[in-house]
């Protein structure tokens, strides 16, 4: 199973919006409504930010939102803040007891 494709890096100024894409196939992203996103600060464990494409766990700011179209899922961060600078990883269900993560994207706040 190949990793989902994410851009290596994206950047934006404080207050701007950035969108991270996560491209898979019809066997993973395109086939299920089960995409999640994880934020990882340097030296820290990943943190769940979005699940089931669009759902936010309790405590995650509403400036984080998710969407999906075809084989590509997206994470949008609106009103970018300094603390949003981190790595972001997508993950998709890929069939019975099978999952695939993305290649990871570094978000830089300029």
């Amino acid at each position, binding site marked *: 199973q190949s*990793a989902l494709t994410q851009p290596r890096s994206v950047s934006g100024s404080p207050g701007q919006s950035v969108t991270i894409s996560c491209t898979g196939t019809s066997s993973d992203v395109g086939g299920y409504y*089960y995409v999640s996103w*994880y934020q990882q600060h340097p030296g820290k464990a*990943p943190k*769940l930010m979005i699940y089931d494409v669009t759902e936010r766990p309790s405590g995650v700011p509403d400036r984080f939102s998710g969407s999906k179209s075809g084989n590509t899922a997206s994470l949008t961060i609106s009103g970018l803040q300094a603390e949003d600078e981190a790595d972001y990883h997508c993950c998709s*269900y890929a069939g019975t007891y*099978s*999952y695939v993560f993305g290649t*990871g994207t570094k978000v830089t706040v300029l």
Partner: protein
Amino acid sequence: EVQLVQSGAEVKKPGESLKISCKGSGYNFRSYWIAWVRQMPGEGLEWMGFIYPDDSDTKYSPSFQGQVTISADKSISTAYLQWSNLKASDTAIYYCARLLTTSGVFDYWGQGSLVSVSS
């Protein structure tokens, strides 16, 4: 508060064996799958496999089947990841994570265990 606390960093030589642990607290450990996820230096995350502590039902990613062993001891709320023949390419940070649903929602993560393998 849900917590997953992992064992500390390890430095090993190629060919050696190793078992790292992940202790859960703050929830019914037996009733949630525990997954193991690898992160090689400077790379993304890779799902390795997971276990259901109540009956030790275990699923492996094809990429890791036969390379590692996942186990659990429900009596002490602890999951394990084990190698019998370490390679330099096993050098990575290994995370355990609670799998909220089998659709792939990893909602709580351990702090990570760094495994370094070098001659």
